[in-house]
Each structure stands twice: as C-alpha cells, then as structure tokens.
C-alpha cells in the first residue's frame, strides 16, 4: 500500500492532492495520470484538473457535486473521496502520452543574453555550457507563470545557475532560460528573472492555433542548436 497523499482545500471550489513536496518524475507521473483520469472520466461537477511538479489540483462546481454526492458533508469531502478511490487502483489510471518535441534554439549573439554569466558562474566556456544543456532530454513537469510557459527539468548541476537577483522588465519572446535545475521558454515578451541561454522561433503560444500551447505536461523536450550561418 502506497503512502496516501495529503489532500487539502484550495478555496471552497478546489482541492489539492499533494504527493510530496519535491521535483521527482514518479510523483509528477502520478499527478499527470490522475489529471488524465479525471479529464477522461469526469465526475458530475468536475471543472478541470491541474497537474504541478508533485501535486494536482481539482476544480469543481460545488452545487453539482453536492447534488450528486449528497451523502457527503461537503463537496470537498466528496471530491477527496473520489481522489482516494481513483488512487486505489493505480494501474487503472490513464498513462500519459509521452510526446517527444525538438525545439530549435539559437545559442548565439543577441539571443543568448546571459550565456556569459552562465559560463562564468559554471567556470567553463560558452560552448561547453551549450553542449551540457543540449545533451539532455527535459521533461515538461507542468505549465504555469504564463500561458504556454513550461517548467522543464532537470538541468545539469554544473550549469544550474540561480535566477537573476533582479528580474528583467522585458525578456524577449522565445527566450530559453535557466533557473537552477529548471529550464523554460518564454512564450511571449514578459518580465522575467531566468538566465537566458538562447532563443527559439517556435511559437510556444499561438492563440489562434487549434491547440494554443505547444507543450503539455509529460512531454519530453530536446533543444537542438540552430546552425548559424
């Protein structure tokens, strides 16, 4: 029997299921699997489920939940029960589709705003930093901060520089950043404090596209250096 997760209210129309406060693939797998389960087989009153690094949050309409699960003292108790019931049979949970996505990145010139800082802090050449960065496949743990902004990991410890002390007021669209063991891509221009290693011209967020965000939780991302002429 696995440890049961902590379940607590996030307001009166949402609860969070916390599998453990850490960045770990198996916890993230659970969060995504349970999200998929509820999305595929929604209970009456289900609004949406949102996976994060090691938790998921389930939003619901309390009027509908109370109507359908009137034997519980609260909508919270009913949804918490639904969560526990789904977790009793982990094998039945919907496995996530593991999409592999290549992201072409320009690691040179004006695109790599902080490559100098990263190289200096890591005590290696910019070329070595880029080699280490592109050697790995990164998992999309979750999206947040901005529409289409994927939190990915884990960055090689040797180049895992912390975010900037004071954030930039404008990070250009498509910038690829590092913040400790995490990496992410700014979907459009915004303020931000991550150390910028390069830039992609892939549209991470495109509101008029059928699926407006390119990446989804569970995806596997590779950064491919763009050949520079």
């Amino acid at each position, binding site marked *: 029997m696995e440890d049961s997760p902590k379940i607590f209210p*996030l307001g009166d129309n949402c609860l969070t299921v916390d599998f453990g406060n850490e960045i770990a693939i198996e916890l993230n797998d659970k969060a995504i699997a349970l999200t998929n389960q509820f999305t595929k087989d929604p209970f009456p009153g289900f609004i949406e489920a949102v996976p994060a690094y090691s938790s998921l949050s389930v939003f619901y309409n309390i009027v509908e939940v109370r109507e359908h699960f009137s034997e519980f003292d609260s909508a919270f108790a009913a949804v918490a029960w639904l969560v526990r019931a789904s977790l009793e049979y982990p094998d039945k949970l919907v496995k996530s589709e593991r999409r592999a996505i290549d992201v072409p990145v320009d690691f040179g010139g004006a695109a790599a705003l902080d490559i100098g800082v990263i190289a200096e802090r890591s005590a290696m050449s910019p070329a070595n930093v880029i080699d280490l960065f592109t050697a790995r496949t990164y998992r999309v743990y979750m999206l947040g901060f901005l529409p289409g902004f994927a939190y990915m990991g884990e960055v090689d410890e040797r180049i895992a520089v912390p975010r900037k002390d004071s954030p930039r007021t404008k990070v250009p669209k498509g910038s690829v950043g590092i913040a400790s063991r995490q990496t992410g891509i700014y979907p459009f221009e915004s303020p931000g404090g991550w150390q910028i290693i390069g830039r992609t011209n892939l549209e991470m967020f495109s509101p008029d596209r059928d699926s407006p965000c390119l990446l989804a*939780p569970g995806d596997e991302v590779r950064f491919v250096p763009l050949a520079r002429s």
Partner: protein
Amino acid sequence: MSLVFKKPGILTTVQDLGRTGWRSLGINPNGVMDAAAARIANAVLGNSDSAAVLEFHFPAPEIEFDADTKIAIAGADFGARIDGTDLQNWSSAFVKEGSLLKFAKPGFGRRGYLSVEGGLQVHKWLGSSSTNLAARVGGCSRRELIAADRIECATAPDTAPALKIGQSIMPPYSRFPTIRVIAGNEFEFLTAIAERSLLLDRFTLTNDCDRMGYRLAGTPLHLLDDLQMVSSAVTFGTIQILPDGQLIILMADHQTSGGYPRLGSVASVDLPLLAQTGPGDGLSFSPISIEEAEWLALQFEKELKFLRVGCKFRNQNDHH
C-alpha cells in the same frame, strides 16, 4: 447596435465568469473580480449567468448607445448618469438611442459593472469573452478599451418598469471588510504569534493592488520553518506569505501556479468584498471551515437562482 466609447476610462475590460478548462496549459481564467455584482447585473436583465459584462474603474468610461437598449449597473457606485439623470445601481434601466452614460464621482467601491441586454458581443477565445491582458487575448480587440472602441450588443424595446433587486443578495461591501479564510496547507507552519496576528490584526492594502493580486502591509508574519516549496496550483483568493513576511492575495488575473506558502484561501462569497477594496483600505481575517464556506456559497447560489427566476418572470410579463 453598439456601445461607443467616447472616453475609455482606466483599465476598462470585457469580462465574463472566466475561461476555465485550460489552467493545465498555464492559461489563467481571468474573468470579473466581483462575480456577485456581474451575475446580479446579468440576472436583472434576464441575461445568461455568464454573459459578458464591462468591468470599469474610476475614472470610468463615457459610453454612447447608438440604439435603444436595456442596461444594468452594479458593484461600485460611481454616480452613473444617463443624459444628466441619475441611474440607480442594482436595477435595470432603458436607454434611448443616442444616450450618453457618464459616471460623476467615485462614491463607493473600486469596480463597477455594466451589463447590457443580451450580453456584450465580442470574439470569444477558448469559450470565454474574458480579457487576458498579459497574453493579449480575449475581450474587445484583445486589450483594455480605448477611445472610439465599439462593442456590439442587442437592442431592446422599452417595455417595462425598471427592476430593482432586494437588499439581501447584495454583497455587504465595506472599505474595511472582514474576510473569511479557509486554512491552507501551510497555515500550520505559522508561529503562534504570527497566527494570532493574522487573525487579530488589520492589514492595509498597499498601492500594489491590481487585477493580478493585492499586496498587504501589516506586522510581518513568521513561519516555524524556512519552507522550500515546489510550485503548485494557486487560484483566485489564495493567500500567500512572501519571504519578507507580508501577505499577497491572488485576484482574478492570478497566475495558474505559485511557489510561496499558502496560508489560506478567501471564502468565495467574500471575494466580491475584496474586489471592492483598494489601496488604503483595510482587511481583517477570520477563520471559516470548509463546510461553512461551502454552505455560504450554496446560499448565494440559491438566492441568485431565486432572483433569476423572479426577474425572468417579470421580464417575460413585460413583453406582453
């Protein structure tokens, strides 16, 4: 017919009850700050609950109506006047073609709502009319209103005496409301002194209060541990403690995830009270159980349903 914006006002946007279903992609719901005001304004006109409305601040917009229609104003009282005649909040009113709606003074509250019969017609994105200012999507032309903008809506005949709603459903607005809070996962990490401060002190709203969040000023609160949190979902009403011990309450334009300890969540029935406060106002907090918070939310839903049925009946009879 259209609403024609002679003056845009400050950060006037089109909003509905929010764009849900997309948080897992980082797409935040947005939507009205004061859902009670917006829903009541829609109810008195017989609109659908989630019809798009205008959210405005003071200085408020000046709007010309290029055809006859019916409107309702709710939330903040900015002294609405149509062609020089006072217009009451929380009631429906018929406006004639060519009328000009102005707002005279910031009487009470921070955010006003204007609903128009049939709802504001803007291009929906992912099923919602709400404006997402950060991503520049939704609403009227994907942004806040500017001068000379036009928003389409339906015309309505002058058929009826104005509908005015009863007091009981109106939120008990105050510049110094007591906000009921459901304890969050990290509440237990507050020191005993910090817990006492949270529940007994008054917190002041700083100038850093907008649709994304309200930063409060008060005695700094301390946690028993230096909690290192991995990011997880946050929502409208989540109360987080910042590294300097001050509080931030996330509002309608919140991000979908956050990494600061969550001390609690505002009971949803008290979010409208929060929406009508602003810089210089003050808050107190009082604890509420999840069961009580749900019960209050259900009570509001019942009253609103009752109001909707009543208004629909009146509006239908008017059309005879």
